[in-house]
C-alpha cells in the first residue's frame, strides 16, 4: 500500500486562529495536564484511600491542610477536566448533527450546562465543608 511506503511529508500551513483552533489547542494542553491531575486523583481517592474511608470529615480535613493545596488541586481538576469533557462532548455531537441550527442549539446547551455545573462545583470548593 502506498500509505505504508511513501515518505511522510510535513507541510507548514498557517492555521487561522479561530475559536475551534483554540479549542483544539486547549484539548491538547488540558489533556497533558490532566494526566497527572486525573490519574493522581483516582490513584489517591479510588485506589489508596477508597470510597469507604471518605466522608465529610475527610474532605474538611483535606481542604484545610497544606495551605489549601488540595483545594487548589480540586479546583484545577474541576476547571480542566470538565471543560475538556464538555468540549469533547461537543465534538462528538457535531459529528452526528449535520443541521447547522441544531448544531448551534446543542453547542449552546453544552456551554450552559458546563457553566452551571462548573459554578456549582466552584462555589462548593470556595465555600468549603459546612
Amino acid at each position: 500500500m502506498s500509505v505504508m511506503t511513501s515518505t511522510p511529508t510535513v507541510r507548514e500551513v498557517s492555521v487561522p486562529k479561530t475559536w475551534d483552533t483554540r479549542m483544539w489547542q486547549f484539548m491538547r494542553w488540558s489533556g497533558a495536564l490532566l494526566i497527572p491531575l486525573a490519574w493522581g486523583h483516582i490513584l489517591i481517592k479510588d485506589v489508596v484511600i477508597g470510597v469507604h474511608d471518605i466522608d465529610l470529615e475527610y474532605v474538611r480535613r483535606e481542604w484545610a491542610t497544606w495551605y489549601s493545596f488540595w483545594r487548589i488541586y480540586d479546583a484545577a481538576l474541576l476547571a480542566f477536566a470538565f471543560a475538556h469533557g464538555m468540549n469533547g462532548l461537543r465534538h462528538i455531537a457535531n459529528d452526528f448533527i449535520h443541521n447547522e441550527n441544531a448544531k448551534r442549539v446543542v453547542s449552546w446547551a453544552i456551554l450552559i450546562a458546563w457553566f452551571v455545573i462548573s459554578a456549582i462545583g466552584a462555589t462548593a470548593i470556595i465555600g468549603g465543608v459546612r
Partner: protein
Amino acid sequence: MATLINTLWQGLWYKGGVGNWSYQFHRLAGLGTLLFLAIHIVDTAFVFFAPELYKHALEIYRHPLFMLGEIALVAGVLYHGMNGLKIIIFDFWPHLWNHRNEGRANILIYVATFLAWLPAAFIMGSNLYKYSILPLLGGK
C-alpha cells in the same frame, strides 16, 4: 431513518481496524468519564450545599454495583489518558506519525492500560470483597 442510521454508522466506522477501535474506545471512555464527572461534581458540591445529602451520595458510591462501575471507570480514565497522550505526541511531532508507529502505539496502549489497571483493579476489588461480599458470607 435510513439517513439517521447511515449518519450513526459513519460516525462510528470510518476505516476499521485497530485504529478505528482505539478511536471508539477513546470516545466511549471519554463520554463515560464525563457522565460520571458531571454527577461527581454535583454530589461533591453537597459538602457545601447539603452536607446531610453528601452522606447519602457516599452510600450510593459504596454500593457494590457502583464499586464495579468504579473499577471500569479507572480502566476508562487510564485508557483515555494514554491514548490522549498518543494523540498529543503525533499531533505535535507529526514526523513520528506513520502507519507503522500508529499501529504499534495502539497495541502498546492496550497492553499498558491493562498492566496499569490490574493492580488498581485488584485493590479496589479487595475493597469490594471486604465491604460488600464478606458481610454477606457472615464474616466481618
